[in-house]
């Protein structure tokens, strides 16, 4: 193992300056990701997990967003001090993203092939046979008959296929870190499982680090080695996934885990999170 982690976030603070008030979306988040490690960031909507994910490559719109403190270091380099050209190399090339909505994350007027090819040309100018490379990655994400399907337009593919294309596009640039921001939320349950299995096997094969952003503890358990729980812009608990799931320390983590519906449960209603009680506890 390297002495220095691949990605190091120290006391990160992000504000959103709205017209009449300032929202502190991320309030002092620190974590590290080692090479090839899988980390899950879990939290409900508005907990700041997606903002943290986007902040890693400064994808947040500035303004209204504002970095008020802390640092992000990737391979020792300060991301917050990078110029535009260095940022463009970082995005996609070193840290790639997969987003929630595959149907709208692909540009409707271009074929799958042209979109992946553009990503490859952007970050790997040394690749000569781009067409073959596109087919190879589509094949890797399990698209049957890749050579033919790559000339399809996004609307001709199903939601699961579209997400596979997004994954292929992200991996085609051979990033060191893959940030999957709610990658399965827009998909139905069976496809969710397929996509998570695919991500796990691709991780095994290519060895990149994965940061999984989700609100769903259910998909974390079999996937991530370490889990960070975010609540109101702070990390309230972190540790190995097994430990956090079996004996959660923080009240919020317990509440979140109780929200997972269980088979054979006698509860008449699904548990929800009682924020008033949590606020008192904190």
């Amino acid at each position, binding site marked *: 193992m390297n002495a220095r982690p691949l990605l190091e976030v120290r006391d990160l603070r992000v504000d959103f300056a709205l017209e009449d008030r300032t929202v502190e979306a991320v309030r002092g988040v620190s974590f590290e990701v080692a090479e090839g490690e899988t980390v899950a960031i879990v939290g409900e909507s508005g907990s700041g997990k997606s903002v943290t994910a986007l902040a890693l490559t400064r994808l947040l719109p500035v303004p209204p967003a504002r970095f008020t403190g802390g640092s992000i270091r990737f391979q020792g380099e300060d991301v917050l001090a990078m110029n535009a050209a260095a940022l463009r190399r970082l995005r996609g090339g070193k840290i790639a*993203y997969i*987003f929630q909505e595959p149907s709208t994350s692909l540009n409707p007027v271009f074929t799958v092939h042209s979109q992946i090819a553009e990503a490859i040309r952007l970050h790997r100018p040394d690749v000569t046979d781009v067409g073959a490379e596109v087919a190879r990655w589509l094949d890797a994400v399990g698209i049957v008959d890749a050579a033919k399907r790559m000339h399809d337009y996004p609307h001709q593919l199903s939601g699961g296929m579209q997400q596979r294309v997004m994954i292929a596009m992200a991996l085609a640039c051979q990033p060191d870190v893959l940030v999957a921001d709610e990658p399965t939320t827009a998909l139905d349950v069976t496809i969710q499982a397929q996509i998570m299995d695919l991500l796990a096997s691709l991780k095994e094969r290519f060895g990149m680090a994965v940061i999984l952003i989700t609100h769903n503890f259910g998909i974390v358990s079999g996937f991530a080695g370490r889990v960070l729980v975010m609540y109101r812009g702070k990390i309230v608990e972190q540790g190995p996934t097994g430990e956090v799931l079996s004996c959660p320390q923080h009240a919020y983590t317990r509440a979140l885990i109780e929200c997972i519906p269980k088979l054979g449960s006698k509860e008449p209603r699904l548990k929800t999170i009682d924020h008033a009680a949590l606020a008192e506890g904190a």
Partner: protein
Amino acid sequence: MLSPLARSRFRKFRSIKRAWYSLLILSALFVVSLFSEHVANDRPLLLGYDGRLYFPTLKFYSGETFGGRYKTAADYRGLRDDPGFRDRGGWMLLPPIPHSPLHPYLDASGTPPHPPSARHWLGTDSAARDVLARLLYGFRICMVFSLSLTVIGTVFGIVIGGIQGYLGGRVDIVIQRLIEIWSALPFLYVVILMGSIYGQTFGVLLFVMAIFQWIGLSYYMRGEFYRLREQPYVLASRAMGAGTTRILFRQILPNAMTPVITLLPFMVLAGITSLTALDFLGFGLQPPTPSWGEMIQQGLNNLQAPWIAMSAIGALFITLMLATFVGEGVRDAFDPKSHTLLK
């Protein structure tokens, strides 16, 4: 190359017969007018003299070449009836309309304007110039002017509207206010002013019209870019490391082309009418440039010679009608509602 949507729109456009044939006729007329020098000219297309071939529409020959006395341009009209020229095996092949748009036929019998005859199919104007030849050259100027205006206006409209919509915020507000002030400038005064300072040339007129032409389109583009920049694929593309220029022109613009294409024929239309109107008022291109507006003006001053006004107005009417049919067809082809057929 073309997306299936673009192909289906093209098929739809072709299936609207009126629009498709209008486009074909209009393009054919425009292509013919581009070769006006070979269609309407008092110089012959081909000339044989002393056993050699000459191409007077393509090259300059002096009078001396054909046994004349001067080194100035050969007088081909004079050569036609010159017995000396014919004695040395001279012959010539004239263009379909053997008149120059600028030559006054003052030697013809009667006073100009001359009514239509076998020699001048649409008669001559008050300066005894052939109306048909002037109509053809006028069409070319009109179309070239209007198409250039449309291209310049479209580029500026896309760039400025796109910047406003994509950047938004303060940039958008400042530019929008400037546009409002700009568009309140009285266009006609600006044309008169600029024309009197820099001369009423093609370039000056094009410039003055172009600085106003883009405004309408920029509103549409601003709205489209505002809407499209929030699309997840724009964020996804930024997350892939695409720069601003690439996002603007590769990701957003191809999705924002519908207003551009549907407005295009109508911008061409507006260009034709405004140039004609300016020429009619005398603030357009300088005489003796063949122009439709100037012909209508002449027709108004010579109501006893209706062929002048009738020709110009007829030509204008047909051109505008064809362009409108094309525009209507394009709009229908881009109408998403006509695609949704439950089968």
